């Protein structure tokens, strides 16, 4: 039994020596491990931002591409959820057509006309409208 104990003690000593050496080697890589974790975290964060970002351009493209050439948008404001437009056109029909296009395109959920008037000086219809994106 004493011999067996001596033998296992020797084995443990040699394992301890190996362990100390491994720990020293692993510790020498601590900075590398730290920077690798940081890079990984940064890449994950970047990917998360990319996947979550909402794009304004399809909304803007929809509004502008569906606007007839005879309609001149003087002022417009767009957010990711809504838009407001102040535009002038030759007659009321062009605006009816415009609203119809907006609502049937699957991008806009609602439109409300805030104001409409005929500019007697220019002979053009001026419409102030707001809408919400789906």
């Amino acid at each position, binding site marked *: *039994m*004493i011999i*067996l*104990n001596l033998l*296992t*003690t020797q*084995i*443990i000593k040699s*394992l*301890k020596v*190996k*362990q100390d050496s*491994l*720990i020293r*080697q*692993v510790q020498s*890589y601590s900075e*590398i*491990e730290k*920077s*690798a974790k*940081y*890079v990984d975290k*940064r*890449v994950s*964060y*970047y990917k998360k*931002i*990319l996947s979550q*970002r*909402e*794009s*304004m*351009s399809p909304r*803007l*493209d929809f509004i*502008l*591409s569906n606007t007839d050439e005879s309609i*001149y*948008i*003087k*002022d*417009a*404001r*767009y*957010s*990711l959820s809504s838009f407001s437009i102040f535009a002038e056109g030759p007659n009321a029909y062009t605006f009816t057509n415009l609203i119809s296009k907006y609502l049937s395109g699957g991008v806009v959920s609602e439109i409300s006309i805030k104001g409409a008037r005929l500019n007697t000086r220019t002979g053009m219809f001026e419409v102030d409208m707001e809408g919400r994106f789906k």
Partner: protein
Amino acid sequence: MKEKFNLVVSNLKRVLSNSDLSYKIYMVFAILTFILIGVFGIVPSSKVFIANIKLAIDMNKSNSMLSSKLVELKKVEGDLKAVEDSIFFLENYLPEQFNVQDYIVDFVFSSGETDFSIDRVTPVKEAGDVINLAIVFVGNGNPVELVNILESLNRVTEIQDLKVSQNEGYTTLSMLVKTFIMEKQ
């Protein structure tokens, strides 16, 4: 005292001279000795041996883990060296610090591809890793094209609010842009 001792010895000799009885006594002694050695010698030694074996197994396991960790770290070191150049791009796409000039350079290049130019850039609010910028572009280009280019920048740019107005043949685009940084912890 000496007499008492001699009496005990002579009694003992007399008892042991009986071979049957002495055999039984020796047997009892032998059994007692065996039990004593077992309890106070072999059992503790066995316990030490079992503990040593358990310790050796645990140490072997942890050494294996450390060895695989070392292999993994060597691989990570190699991977990091391989992507060293890409880390530079990551710094551009998701900087650690907000430098307004870097953003202006990006926006100038982007607007240069359309017929717009930057009128002004104002940092609005910093909240943690999110930076908001108010930017005004002036020109005659296509607003959709400019917005598309800005939103396609590798440096993540989200247009939160956009105001388009026409003045004397020029289009003015005022936008609130959200960008991101990642502060080093």
